[in-house]
């Protein structure tokens, strides 16, 4: 696989051969791919944050009648802190919800609401089927979609949701599977 370390696209959500480590990293295990949700899929909370910032400017003239200047200052302070925290928690959710493909396995790291952690691992040898789902106007335009990796038996399946270049990801996993099974 070509080493295009510097090539990370879509705001660091699709990185080939990244310099990352994870807590169950094994000796000699090489990370081939790191993926996160496509930045476009984060547009909801970005727009909400912008609207909340605008909202405070709209609300301020109305609350002047109910609160004194000191109280308005405190309320504004709270509001800005609240919006900043909202942005930050969403950034953390995006940053730490990652999918990793190594030369031995596929790992899906999920953090729900930052408080709950779930790490799903599928050994390359146990992967049976890879499904790529991409669609919709924005999905087609920005080239993002979901990759579902099914494993043998009752093992948990791995899902990369709304990731950039889903077909390329499937291609990379297939190539690694080929190497693993000795087809390439």
């Amino acid at each position: 696989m070509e080493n295009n370390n510097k090539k990370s696209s879509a705001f660091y959500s699709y990185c080939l051969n990244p310099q990352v480590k994870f807590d169950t990293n094994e000796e000699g295990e090489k990370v081939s791919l790191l993926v996160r949700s496509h930045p476009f899929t984060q547009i909801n909370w970005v727009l909400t944050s912008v609207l909340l910032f605008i909202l405070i400017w709209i609300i301020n003239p109305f609350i002047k009648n109910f609160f004194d200047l000191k109280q308005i200052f405190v309320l504004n302070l709270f509001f800005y802190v609240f919006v900043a925290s909202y942005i930050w928690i969403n950034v953390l959710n995006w940053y730490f919800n990652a999918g990793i493909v190594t030369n031995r396995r596929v790992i899906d790291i999920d953090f729900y609401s930052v408080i709950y952690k779930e790490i799903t691992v599928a050994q390359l040898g146990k992967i049976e089927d890879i499904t790529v789902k991409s669609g919709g106007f924005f999905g087609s335009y920005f080239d993002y979609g979901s990759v579902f990796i099914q494993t043998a038996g009752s093992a948990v399946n791995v899902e990369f949701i709304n990731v950039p270049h889903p077909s390329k990801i499937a291609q990379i996993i297939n190539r690694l599977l080929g190497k693993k099974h000795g087809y390439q």
Partner: protein
Amino acid sequence: MDISKFFSTIGEIGIKNIFFMLFTILFAIFYFFYALVISKQVRVMDKALQDKYNWLILFITSFQVTVSLILLIILILTIFFI
């Protein structure tokens, strides 16, 4: 404190202002604990996924804890002393 003096003090400050004080102080305390929990969780996540921008994430999280503490202090000063 004498009960009549207590009620006259409440009357001077005003019920609305007392509720405002309580609400803001409680919010600031909750926010401080929330920032601490997030900080702890980010450290756990930092171990789960070690990427090149983790230093920035850790820095901003520490900054958030500092801000929450400053906010609490500012509130106490604003409400009780200024």
